[in-house]
């Protein structure tokens, strides 16, 4: 027996599984790839069903803001385009993000750094619970409780700020406006943005915060110089996850936004809609040709949210990896 001075690299070992394990691994692999199959099938079937629409209207399907089936017997008289709905999706989602993100940052900081320990565990659970409230309940609450409040606020905003194009309206009726839908969406996406923010803030290097504190810095100094810069990219990812949710929301927007086919940037006006609520709205009485258009709209929505989520996931994962 002799002891060697220089250990060599371990040799490459090929693994040979038993037949049972090969079957097992194959089975699990195919089940795991189910999500891939589903995603591909979704895109394929929506494209297949909606193909005629893309062929008939081309790019104008996503730029036109008109929904007119014309003569139901003659599909060539139809003019269908979801431009206004896409704008509506973006406007409401952007309002939601602009409102939700500052509050999400504050909530995450509060839960992570300000709340006493007991409160912190409770709040984490509450946050999860609120995230699980069904959107239809947010919708009915938004319709019954939030609507009159926002109508009231809209009046005030219009009174003082109507010189600013965003807050101008043709007729001062403020009912189910993009502002209402956006605010409701901001309440709905706040839990998920806060959860992501809390997670990345919680991973901020504790010793750096302690160091800042030990050098006579205040808690806020530690947060401002260590926590916030550290959590920046994670927060962006969380916000994008929220954006994806907001753009894909159906029922809450259906209940709180008047479906009007008009490209509307006036957030107080009672007109708008998003792609998802369009589908829910038109589905019930749709003609065959209209159904195809809804499939095409669904495909556009699917691809847009997939893209947003793709970037969100990449950003969130990267910020996790840095830790």
């Amino acid at each position, binding site marked *: 027996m002799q002891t060697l001075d220089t250990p060599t690299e371990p040799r490459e070992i090929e693994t040979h599984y038993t037949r049972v394990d090969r079957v097992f691994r194959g089975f699990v692999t195919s089940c795991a790839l189910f999500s891939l199959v589903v995603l591909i099938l979704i895109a394929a079937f929506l494209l297949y069903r909606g193909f005629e629409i893309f062929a008939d209207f081309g790019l104008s399907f996503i730029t036109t803001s008109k929904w007119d089936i014309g003569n139901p017997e003659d599909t060539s008289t139809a003019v269908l385009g979801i431009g206004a709905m896409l704008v509506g999706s973006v406007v409401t989602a952007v309002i939601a993000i602009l409102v939700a993100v500052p509050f999400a940052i504050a909530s995450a900081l509060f839960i992570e750094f300000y709340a006493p320990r007991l409160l912190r565990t409770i709040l984490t659970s509450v946050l999860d*619970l609120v995230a699980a409230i069904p959107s239809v309940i947010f919708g009915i609450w938004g319709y019954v409780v939030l609507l009159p409040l926002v109508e009231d606020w809209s009046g005030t905003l219009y009174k003082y700020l109507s010189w600013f194009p965003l807050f101008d309206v043709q007729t001062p009726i403020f009912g189910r406006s993009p502002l209402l839908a956006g605010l409701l969406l901001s309440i709905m996406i706040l839990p998920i943005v806060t959860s992501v923010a809390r997670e990345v803030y919680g991973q901020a290097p504790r010793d750096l915060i302690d160091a800042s504190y030990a050098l006579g810095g205040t808690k806020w100094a530690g947060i401002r110089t260590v926590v916030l810069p550290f959590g920046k990219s994670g927060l962006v990812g969380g916000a994008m996850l929220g954006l994806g949710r907001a753009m894909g929301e159906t029922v809450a927007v259906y209940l709180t936004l008047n479906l009007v086919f008009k490209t509307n940037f006036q957030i107080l006006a009672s007109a708008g809609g998003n792609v998802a609520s369009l589908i829910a709205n038109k589905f019930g009485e749709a003609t065959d040709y209209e159904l195809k258009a809804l499939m095409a709209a669904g495909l556009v*929505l699917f691809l847009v*949210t997939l893209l947003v989520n793709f970037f969100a996931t990449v950003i969130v994962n990267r910020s996790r990896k840095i830790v």
Partner: protein
Amino acid sequence: MTTFEVSTVVPEPRRPWDHSRGTLLRVGVLVTLSGIFGWLLNTLTGLSGFLGWYVGLAFAMPVVAFVGSVRHGWNLASDRVASAVITVAFAAVTIPWVSIFVTVYQKGSKAFHSKYLTDDMRITPSSDVIQNGGVAHAIIGTLMMVLIASLIAVPLGILAAVYIVEIKGRFAKLVRFLTQAMSGVPSIVAGLFIYATVVVFFGGFSAWAGALALVILMLPTVARTSEEILKIVPEDLRTASYALGATQSRTTFRVVLPTIASGLVTAAVLGIARVVGETAPLILTASYFVAKSTSLNEPIASLPIYIFSSLGLGDENATTRAWGGSLVLLGVVFILFAIARTISTRLARK
């Protein structure tokens, strides 16, 4: 001795800042002063009600905090102002939460009568007086669809997690990524997809179609949670099993999964909580029905659609019914959450 329990005890991070009695006194004075200011603002201007008062308080608190601390220097003042802003903002966030819970309870309980949970709407129009009809059909439909969806999505989700953690296959990263991407699929798109396939091919709305749409939405939650739980199983447990002659499949099914069984239940429950209130996909797949039904091939009622369709009618009694349905649905979500919480704390304590 070492036997294997799953341990998730995370050491509590150190917190150099602790709340002393002085802090509490200071915060008390701060809140009182701001509250008075909010009340003043409330009476002097057009702002009214609780929200008006809160807006006043929210703006006053940072100012009061600044004035009270600025004599100690800029650093301390900015710290106090930041604390005030963060606390006020977080408290503002909880206002809609409280409002939702309270409103659903207050308005929802008005719809309740002795037979609300056991009657259906077979012979009762939505606008009928509250004492007639109930939500039993919707509860049955929701339970059936969620049950079927779970039977499919839970095994698939767990196997996806097994693939990532146990098999560590070539596509592990891809599978994790796709599951995350799938969690972002808008629910209406899942509904459209099932409509374009199942409903069109098999000729009509059905409980089956509804359940399949829910599978798509449930799977990512189950997979993600299971993965997190599988990761806390110690590697030694697997090694020991191999050294006794157990194959990988046997190790996975007999040793690893039973060890974290309660964690997998949590994953399933969270998945169920995620889909139990889904409305949009069911409009396109299960549609609606007014009587108790257990047929899988027919349209079926569900709680979310019961709420949604009652609300759309604009009638006062129908709206009250929508709130009643909301209360039942929220109750279901609550119960599911309590179950998941209990199991996972028990798991953590072991």
